[in-house]
């Protein structure tokens, strides 16, 4: 049986790991390659690098990080942030990424999803989503790190993403992100009911039981967290052993 995945995310700026809270108040910390190695030792099922630079120079540094990590860490690597073209996909995959994640650019140019899936295969196309409650019982999709409201209904967007051939969705709830009160079960459930591709839960993890809660209460395939692992409040091993205790299949 396929195991549920526990995924640490590393926010990277100019080749250094940083951790932002609610996309604000960024602090610089350390060498992403070392973090990736440590997460690998702890049993991470996949490692995500999220480039928050959005400059040409930063991009180059990010690719160096990926190249170096791929020489030392032998689990799937996913890279996101600032991906806007087929060429970005190609360069990132060539540097050693196994998956590439797109967010804002998929909203402004949805053809990017279909083209990338056709050229590189669905398995390496991940679409990241930032979404929020709209106040009327629904959810709306945002772009540019949650700054621009797309006035797009979440359910419609995830269906389009699936139809266009994406292999996976990484759902970040802006309502839950940074609260440390747990993953957004309602929003996750909503998205999982709309699509038949794997959904990764992101945003809101603050305690051990939050991970198993999301995996038990929804059909999500994976749970992702950044700061909890980053600040060593929890290790991936701890999360996995709690999942096992709750009857969740993990590696």
């Amino acid at each position, binding site marked *: *049986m*396929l*195991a549920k*995945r526990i995924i640490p995310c590393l926010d990277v700026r100019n080749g250094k790991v940083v951790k932002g809270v609610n996309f604000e108040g960024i602090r610089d910390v350390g060498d992403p390659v070392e973090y990736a190695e440590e997460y*690998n030792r702890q049993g991470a*099922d996949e490692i995500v690098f999220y480039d928050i630079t959005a400059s040409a120079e930063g991009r180059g540094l990010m690719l160096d990080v990926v190249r170096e990590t*791929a*020489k*030392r860490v*032998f*689990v*799937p690597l996913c890279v996101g942030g600032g991906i806007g073209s087929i060429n970005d996909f190609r360069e990132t995959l*060539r540097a*050693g990424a*196994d998956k590439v994640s797109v967010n804002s650019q998929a909203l402004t140019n949805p053809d990017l999803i279909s083209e990338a899936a056709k050229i590189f*295969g*669905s*398995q390496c196309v991940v679409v990241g989503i930032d979404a929020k409650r709209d106040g009327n019982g629904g959810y709306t999709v945002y772009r540019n790190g949650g700054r621009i409201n797309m006035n797009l209904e979440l359910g419609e967007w995830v269906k389009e993403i699936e139809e266009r051939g994406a*292999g*996976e969705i990484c759902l970040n709830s802006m309502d839950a992100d940074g609260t440390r009160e747990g993953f957004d079960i309602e929003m996750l459930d909503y998205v999982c009911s709309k699509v*038949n*591709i*794997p959904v990764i839960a992101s945003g809101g993890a603050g305690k051990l039981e939050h991970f198993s809660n999301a995996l038990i209460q929804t059909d999500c*395939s*994976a749970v992702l967290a950044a700061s909890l692992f980053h600040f060593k409040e929890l290790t991936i091993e701890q999360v996995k052993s709690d999942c096992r205790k709750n009857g969740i299949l993990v*590696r």
Partner: protein
Amino acid sequence: MITIIDYGAGNLFSVHNALEYLGYENKISCEPEDIIGADRLILPGVGAFGDAMDKLKKAGLVDIIKQEAIKKPFLGICLGMQMLFEKSYEFGEYEGLGLIPGEVKLMEPEGNLVIPQMGWNSLEYNHRCAILKDIDNGTYVYFVHSYAAKCPDEFVSAYSNYGGKVTALVNKGTVYGAQFHPEKSGEIGLQMLKNFAEL
């Protein structure tokens, strides 16, 4: 010397990185002399079957591979494993290398399971082969695939379970094939590559 066969497809560099990390001399090449001169061969692959076989044919490598694969340890990974079989039905009907009897078909998992199978799944031993030396039954490895091989049970070293039995590791003589990615399966995967390099 391990030659990683380059036919213009696939994730050659992850396999190369893993062998480098383990300290085994290796070379990415499409030259016949590097294939004939190697102690061991690895055929990686990501993409579509027909397209990959076409590329092998155009590079003039089909006969050389068939001839060398039965002389020395040969490992096909993912699509490279599927190409070991006689035939595939991925987007049409294509002839494979025919090194192991069997066919490659779209997976039809029972239940509400997603295709591709993507993620970590456990191996269930069948006829245990040398690649599994020092590796426990039930260990997890990383899979990404939509098609899977149907072949006689005698050649299956391990299955995985994804809405039914999925051929995960095969062996016939010097020829080995892994549907999963040992180069992306952490320590366990590295151990398998080591086992292969020391056959």
